[in-house]
């Protein structure tokens, strides 16, 4: 199964829910969704990834894109990642800028 995703913007907070596999098949679509937010005032981006089973190189690059081009000054949260996904995020250095937590409080 490729990824399902939903992107919502409310009160300068972007909530992104991703399920399944974020890879070359699904990453470009999510990138396009995020591109629509470029230029908007954003304080926080929150990736809800409880049901994300796998993230590939292409998937990682969507998150980097989000940081560099959408939420330049925003805090970026990565919520509820499964261990295997969190491992990949840590080993490839994304945890330097991601705030990884089990749960999210408004």
């Amino acid at each position, binding site marked *: 199964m490729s990824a399902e995703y939903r992107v919502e913007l409310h009160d300068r907070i972007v909530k992104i829910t991703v399920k399944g596999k974020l*890879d070359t098949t699904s990453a470009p679509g999510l990138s396009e969704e995020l591109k629509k937010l470029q230029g908007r005032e954003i304080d926080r981006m929150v990736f809800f990834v409880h049901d994300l089973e*796998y993230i590939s*190189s292409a998937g990682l*690059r969507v998150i980097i894109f989000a940081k560099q081009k959408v939420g330049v000054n925003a805090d970026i949260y990565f919520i509820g990642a499964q261990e295997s996904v969190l491992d*990949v995020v*840590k*080993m*490839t*250095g994304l945890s330097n*800028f991601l705030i990884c937590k089990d749960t999210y409080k408004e």
Partner: protein
Amino acid sequence: MIRIDSYPTHTYKGFKLRPGKPLPFGATIVPGGVNFSIYSSHATGCELVLFKKHDPKPFARIPFRDDFKIGNVYAMVVFDLDYENVEYGYVMDGPFDPAQGHRFDKTKILMDPFAKAIGGRDEWGKEPDWNDIYQHRARVAFDDFDWEGDHPLEIPFEDLIVYEMHIRSFTCHESSKVEHRGTFAGIVEKIPYLRDLGVNCIELMPIHAFDEFEQSRISPVTGKRLMNYWGYSNVGFFAPKAGYAATGKFGMEMDELKNMIRELHKNGIEVLLDVVFNHTAEGNEMGPYISYRGIDNHTYYMLTSDGYYFNFSGCGNTLNCNNPIVRNMILECLRYWASEYHIDGFRFDLASILGRDQNGAPMNNPPLLESLAFDPVLGKCKLIAEAWDAGGLYQVGSFPNWGRWAEWNGKFRDDIRRFIKGDPGLVGAVIQRVEGSPDLYRWQGRSTSSSINFITCHDGFTLMDLVSYDGKHNEANGEDNRDGSNDADSWNCGWEGPTEDSGTNFLRMKQIKNALTILMISQGIPMVLSGDEIGNTQLGNNNAYCQDNEISWLDWSLVEHNSDLFNFFKKMIAFRHAHPVLRSREHFRNTDYVGSGYPDISWHGTRAWYVDFSEQSRCIACLLCGKHAKSGTCDDNTIYVAMNMHWEMHGFELPSPPPGERWHVFANTDVVPPQDIWDVGSEQPLDNEYEVLVGPRSVVVLVAK
């Protein structure tokens, strides 16, 4: 603006294609697809072969049309590929005529020499499917990365303290307590340890893609599997070893490695790569087809007049480094590592081969070495040669350099080993080595930074084994102890191997400290073998190239067990960092050119201002004038180092310290820890200003202040 070359022009069995761009070589992601480009001077035809990741059979074979070829380059864009899940190879058509140097074989699927990622050995030690028709699988790579502003550190060469390590050995032992043992990620977890030790540069044994199963076998002695563990046998030059990455099984080894380099840089630690351009993993006539042999054998390898492989590497074949095409590949490769991975420098294995012409004869001005010396992308990279090869060429002190190349100084290793062991007649040689080997380098106008000083490296004994074994003990390698060096200049201190005898063990520790102290007070760039700082042993194995087990893996419990030794290393490294007088780029002039009243360096013996050069002399001391630090450009303490490698204690008459200053003891290797070494700034005043007693086989370091 829409580019018109981002659309297909042709189709082949449902695949959308267009003529590709010949440069860059390799597989490059372009809008809508992937540009595949490969050259062969002698092939008559080429097919692109595509696999789904890990699949045994290809899902497509796409011939390059005649109009997709420019010169000797086959180039084609294939659109709509799921490039993260694709592996690609080539089939080359052409003559099979070994006498003419051609070994084309249409039945073989060949890896792209420019592949940036290579699968097939994604997880270290996982038994491959030996029936797989394509063992080492080229993959399409992302070459972007969020470097967060990182760039190579460009630490002045003379300020480096190099730490040679093997990715897997460093953290594979369970005592390392890292989450991902034996990986790039594991190194990141150990950065605090490296910082604590104080090294500012790691030199990684080969991390290019290699096959750990090459010549794998079961040891008849131990019953354990022997591997191609060190990796001095390249499968691909552009790709990192996936099995060294915890994320290799997901194809993210490039990101993991880049993250490691970025984190090391953040902590002030440079990264040098040990690169092996002298041969490939394809071996000789009997070896496998992996890539080069089937793509353009005549171009890639040095061949005899009747088509056999020259073997200057000792590994079956020799890469044809001064062929213009191969030369460009090597240059492109190093540029790629420097720019895409932010590598700070390279150490070239058996580098003398890079200076041989296509017939194997040494050249005066090898074009490859010159190109590397003057390349703009590599302009700030450290270039270090292992200045010899297996064909008998030995160029320590004479490696073609253009003021850019440094050398592993094998003479430093040999002379200091013999001196520490107590061999006679070495006083003159030790003076040269401590001064940065001016006998080798000054006459050519080369700086002290030309000399990479070391006493141990991956090749040979660890420092603990150097003082614990007279002979090698390589039986576990399964070669009847024939392999490995027989002239290690080691001394077991009276007992072969481990012992409970406290006197022997004290002497061994002292000898290790003597070695480190001489290394750290010598001009040039010191290199320490990983694990020596904690007394790591390989149980007398001086050639552990095949040992993927506890023989090679660092036992981290030694950090605590040998904490005194670790403490000595830390403080001695800190001492070198603190004292620029130990790190001059210029050679000494042996005169006083700043008016301090002392020459920049002066030599002494048991009598001040007098050196006994006789055959039986084993006592020598140097005084480094602090006013001459960095050629007189900065002020430092004056330092005196007394080395007594005689088995009896000797009193060393002291030269006067600078006016108003007194001698203070920084280190005395004959003293029981923790009084063997002090923190920089906490040196202890010496009671007797006129003489220091130096114990048998001991070194004393004094600081004037």
